[in-house]
């Protein structure tokens, strides 16, 4: 029998992971909270199996990723008419900026943990969706290029290009943030 306390403990153990996965994919806290709620309601339906399963974290992450991608697809289709008159499939001029910076050993030599977290989260959110989503799937979810292309229903070459540009854009945002001021001007 499921008791509310058992499920509450289960939720507390995983809610940060679920929310982080959702917010990094959708780039919006309110929407990520909605998605997280939906994930935990699904988890509650399967709690008999999940509560003792060693793969509960993986199950939650997969469900969160799928729901986030579904949400993005629905949202994109709904608002494309209003907001995206240019095709995002073909990267815009801002994507064509050359990658030009000195590669440091790490981006946050002089920052403490909280500042680092804030800069990175902000930099991720600043990326356009077509770059952020494959980047997050690749680096956070360890998804191979082929699977990302399949999930996003785009070509393999587009996924690789978007991720490459996302890395460059992320590096540039981080540089502009001043986080690497000392390193880059050294």
């Amino acid at each position, binding site marked *: 029998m499921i008791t*509310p306390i058992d*499920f*509450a403990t289960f*939720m*507390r153990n995983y*809610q*940060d*992971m*679920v*929310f*982080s996965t959702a*917010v*990094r994919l959708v780039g919006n*806290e309110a929407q990520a*909270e909605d998605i*997280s*709620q939906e994930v*935990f*309601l699904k988890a*509650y*339906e399967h709690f008999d199996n999940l509560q003792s399963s060693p793969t509960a974290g993986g199950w939650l992450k997969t469900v969160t990723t799928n729901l986030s991608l579904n949400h993005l697809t629905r949202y994109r289709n709904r*608002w494309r*008419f*209003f*907001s995206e008159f240019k095709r995002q499939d073909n990267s815009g001029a801002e994507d064509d900026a*050359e*990658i*030009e*910076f*000195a*590669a*440091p*050993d*790490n*981006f*946050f030599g002089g920052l403490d*943990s909280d500042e*680092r*977290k804030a800069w*990175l*989260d902000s930099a*991720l959110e600043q990326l*356009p969706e077509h770059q952020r989503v494959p*980047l997050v799937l690749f*680096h*956070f979810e360890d998804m191979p290029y082929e699977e990302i292309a399949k999930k996003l229903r785009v070509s393999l070459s587009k996924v690789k290009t978007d991720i*490459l540009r996302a*890395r*460059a854009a*992320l*590096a540039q945002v*981080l540089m502009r943030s001043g986080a690497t001021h000392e390193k880059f001007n050294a």
Partner: protein
Amino acid sequence: MSQPNPEELEKLIHHTLRSLPNRRAPRSLEQRVMAAIVAQQSLPWWRQSFAHWPQAAKAAFLLLSGAFAALLVTIVFRAGADVGTASPLTSALSTLAHAKMVLGNISDIGAAVLRSIPPLWLYGGAAFVVVMYTTLIGLGATAYRTLFNHR
């Protein structure tokens, strides 16, 4: 400044992103989930998903559904047998003639209604619908771009 090697950049970004701790979930999340669970549980069983129905109700539902399906199949087969006694061509033609008569009546009524409305009213009404439609689309797009689309 130098052009970074893509592999080097990949490693650097990977290392940087993976060092990022999880974001803290909003305090409201747990309350929202628990409230939704309580709301779901407070629903009567017939409004919950089929998986949560009592076993007896599930069995009764399946039995009734089966019986209903069997009844439908029997009715269809009997009707088919009755129709089979008449010529299939005659039956098809009479169905077509009946459908034509119904459609003709509907179009006659529509034409009579249209004739009774002055043409100016019709054109004015059409123009009003077009203007309202474009206005609402414009307002919606402007509101979305202003309020929600920050990128």
